[in-house]
């Protein structure tokens, strides 16, 4: 397919676009992508982004394993995933081309920096021949531009070293792409001036680079068209973009405030992809948040328990292997009935597995993975902005029911971002806790008759001195008890307390479609976006299919069983080998079917559409 030429002024309208910026780790692709995202958000499009960092800290320049990429999906309507195949790919060097080309749609726009396609770089990337010089790219609209050189000219008036000059070529590329999609440049200019406030020469050079790229688009006769993407119609209000990490952290802060807890102790041990939760909270000391980098995950969990015992909200975070280490201590939190929020940022398993890839294979561990009969609530997050609500909800349940709560999110959500209608903090719900102070009639395992939550009696309170621990306790006195009937009663009570939460959470809604029909596609976690789009597409094709997305994994919403039974078939796509599907079958005896993908990557909308359609049709 050869690229048709056209006049630069006529913009082709598009509803949805997926672009990926890819280059060497040192090429500034994350910044380029972020700026493109900002301008796109300001242009009123809905969007979703996903960064893809190399697994290595700093791989040698030019290698395929050193490629860093940033993908953005934006459009005139609702956008819920970072997108399937690419409409445009920016490849700053041969390695970036090598790694990313397979995702570019036939006919898609490919921007290559000729200046980086040197013999050396081609070899490093494993190319025997230069793909720009043979027929390898014939099915794309290739823009072979010597960006390095064009940019060098643009910035040569500034007092930059060669390195700095080369470095600014990402801004040139950004300028070109902003032109191509008809975006503004103001916000980026502002940002550059602020970022390099102390190095005005660099700031100005970068602005010049961007402007040059933009101008190039406007004036040159490119082998690709320019596009326009109309604004999406969104609710009025003030927006920002958030990653799942930010939104989760703010949700926890909001939860602590709603619970009227002036102190939060967050104890964690670094692990990919969970560390950013610790990092972000570490910067919020003014909110009464103490962060503690413990010696390991066990200590982190135990410190969170100690903090909760001391009347603070205990939080800990990790990923699969670290959550595994916390298991024994989680049992102690269940036994002592203390409020701790445990965040699992899931990654590819088993064992060390695929630390930088996403997966949702820790559901079994969350729901079942403890010794003894040790129930606890399990929540999950669906989108970056959903993390905010779920963070708050985890705090509410933990403090109201005096229980550890497991919050499942994943590596994809942690890093993905999307626009978010910022809530008004003063209008958020409140659920203040009560600490016991009255010694009269006090027993350490006194329960709220409605929630079955244990009293929160905090050291420092006169007259409430008592002892707790991991050995079974007498239902009435809270003393150690080896009594058989008491153990049964306590086991039943612990189960009833968690099951009872089902009465305090929303009924399960249908995310898309009717509440009955031929097929329900049931998901949880970060598959929300692709399932939503896939079901929408299938419904548009006329298929009788609905989407149900479960936030509350333990206990399930009261109506879930009935709801599922209203469908002829239940299909459960998961980024694991079939975990929710087995929990649903056990719970409701519905013949739910599994649809697994365990590749370390999110579902693509198209592959879901195909998979669901083939099942609908058989």
């Amino acid at each position, binding site marked *: 397919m050869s690229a048709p030429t056209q006049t630069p002024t006529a913009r082709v309208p598009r509803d949805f676009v997926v672009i990926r910026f890819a280059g060497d780790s040192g090429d500034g692709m994350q910044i380029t992508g972020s700026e493109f995202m900002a301008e796109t958000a300001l242009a009123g499009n809905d969007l979703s982004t996903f960064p893809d960092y190399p697994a290595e800290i700093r791989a040698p320049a030019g290698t395929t394993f050193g490629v860093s990429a940033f993908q953005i999906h934006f459009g005139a309507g609702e956008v819920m995933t970072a997108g399937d195949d690419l409409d445009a790919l920016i490849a700053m060097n041969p390695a970036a081309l090598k790694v990313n080309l397979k995702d570019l749609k036939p006919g898609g726009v490919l921007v290559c920096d000729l200046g980086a396609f040197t013999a050396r770089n081609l070899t490093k990337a494993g190319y025997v021949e230069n793909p720009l010089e043979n027929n390898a790219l014939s099915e794309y609209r290739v823009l072979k531009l010597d960006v390095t050189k064009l940019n060098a000219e643009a910035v040569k008036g500034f007092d930059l070293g060669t390195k700095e000059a080369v470095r600014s070529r990402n801004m040139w590329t950004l300028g070109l792409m902003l032109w191509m999609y008809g975006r503004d440049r103001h916000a980026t200019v502002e940002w550059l001036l602020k970022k390099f406030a102390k190095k005005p020469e660099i700031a100005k050079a970068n602005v010049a680079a961007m402007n040059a790229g933009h101008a190039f688009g406007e004036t040159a006769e490119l082998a690709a068209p320019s596009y326009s993407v109309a604004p999406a119609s969104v609710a009025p209000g003030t927006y*920002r973009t958030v990653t799942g990490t930010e939104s989760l952290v703010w949700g926890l802060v909001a939860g602590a405030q709603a619970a009227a807890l002036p102190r939060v102790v967050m104890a964690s041990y670094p692990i990919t992809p969970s560390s950013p939760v610790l990092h972000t909270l570490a910067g919020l000391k003014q909110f009464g948040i103490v962060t*503690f980098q413990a010696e390991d995950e066990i200590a982190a969990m135990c410190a969170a328990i100690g903090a909760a015992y001391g009347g603070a909200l205990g939080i800990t975070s990790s990923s699969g292997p670290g959550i595994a280490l916390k298991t024994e201590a989680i049992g102690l939190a269940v036994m002592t009935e203390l409020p701790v929020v445990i965040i699992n940022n899931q990654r590819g398993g088993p064992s060390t597995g695929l630390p930088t890839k996403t997966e949702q294979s820790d559901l079994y561990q969350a729901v079942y993975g403890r010794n003894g009969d040790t129930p606890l609530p399990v929540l999950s997050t669906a989108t970056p902005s959903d993390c905010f609500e779920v963070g708050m909800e985890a705090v509410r349940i933990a403090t109201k029911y005096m229980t550890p709560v497991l919050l499942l999110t994943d590596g994809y959500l942690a890093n993905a971002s999307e626009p978010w209608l910022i809530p008004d903090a003063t209008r958020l719900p409140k659920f203040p806790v009560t600490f016991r102070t009255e010694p009269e009639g006090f027993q350490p395992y006194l329960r709220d008759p409605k929630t079955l939550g244990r009293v929160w009696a905090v050291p420092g309170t006169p007259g409430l001195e008592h002892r707790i621990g991991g050995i079974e306790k007498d239902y009435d006195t809270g003393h150690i008890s080896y009594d058989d009937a008491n153990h049964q009663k306590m086991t039943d009570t612990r189960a009833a307390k968690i099951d009872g939460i089902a009465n305090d959470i929303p009924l399960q809604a249908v995310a898309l479609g009717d509440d009955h029909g031929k097929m329900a596609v049931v998901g949880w976690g970060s598959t929300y976006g692709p399932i939503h789009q896939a079901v929408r597409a299938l419904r548009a094709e006329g298929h009788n299919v609905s989407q149900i997305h479960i936030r509350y994994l333990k206990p399930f919403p009261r109506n879930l069983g009935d709801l599922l039974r209203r469908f002829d078939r239940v299909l459960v796509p998961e980024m694991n080998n079939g975990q929710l599907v087995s929990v649903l079958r056990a719970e409701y005896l519905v013949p739910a079917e599994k649809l697994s993908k365990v590749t370390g990557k999110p579902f693509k909308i198209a592959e879901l559409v195909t998979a669901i359609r083939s099942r609908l049709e058989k």
Partner: protein
Amino acid sequence: MTVITPPPAEKKVTAADFESDQEVRWCPGCGDYAILKAVQRTLAEVGARKENTVFVSGIGCSSRFPYYISTYGFHTIHGRAPAVATGLKLAQPDLDVWLVTGDGDGLSIGGNHLLHVLRRNVNMQLMLFNNEIYGLTKGQYSPTSRVGTRSPSTPLGSVDMPLSPTLFALGAGARFVARSVDTQQPHLVTVLKRAHAHHGTSFVEIFQNCVVYNDGVFDEFTDRSVAPDRQLLVEHGKPLVFGKAKNQGLRLKPNELELEVVTIGENGVSVADILVHDERNRALASLLGSLHPPDFPQVLGVLYCNPAPSFEDAVFGQMKAAANVGPKDLDSLMRTGRTWTVGG
């Protein structure tokens, strides 16, 4: 949460005030009873407030301790008490926390947490009941058991070198390291009071007799008949002398980093030759901690005390400094960075 600042103790408290309503369930004759008494006495003597005092322990016979004290108590899981206690102190730095652990709880499964609590210098008293055996699980050898210990898991005798809790603690960076003996009440109370007065983690190793699984293992220096000749009770600034006649002493071998036992009045040795205890000298503490009968006395008392800021001090110092930095409320926090408004 409001940290309830307790009213000043209205009346003088006694040891009996710190007895809980629980029946004590150690084996008759266990050294833990004596330690319990000494701790209750110490609490009375320092005028501890029940509501402000917390005993945190792991798992083991020793770790049952909190049940028998009328303050707050947390009997956690095996080896993890230091981590739980650290979290507690981060929630409420003003609590007076005592940690109880055993040689198995603290040095086998819990070695890492002990290491890090000592390194961080969290302000608490940490008592390690060393009976050189696993009591609760019926007598297996522990990391402090001597080579050759026959136990259910080592029927032909253990082969691994024991740890010295004192040397371990010093290696971990502890700022207060002391030792005493379960049944030596006045000495133990004195040491515990010093530990309580110290700001930071106060590490106290208590030699504790397990009558069932390791009876008499410390007799070589605790038996009344030999104690005066086999114990050196250190005091800061005092010469390192011992013996019934107080005429034995420790001398630094000239130009060598080794100690020797000398007799004052013999071979021209005078008191002036005897090394003077300096509890701020880590090297001295480490040398003293490695002496053992029969060739040397067992050194007891405060071997090392060299205060440094506690972990909580530093953490809450930063909290205070940061209290007015950055967005002040949730609304402004959520609005940091780029935002845009869609008209409605």
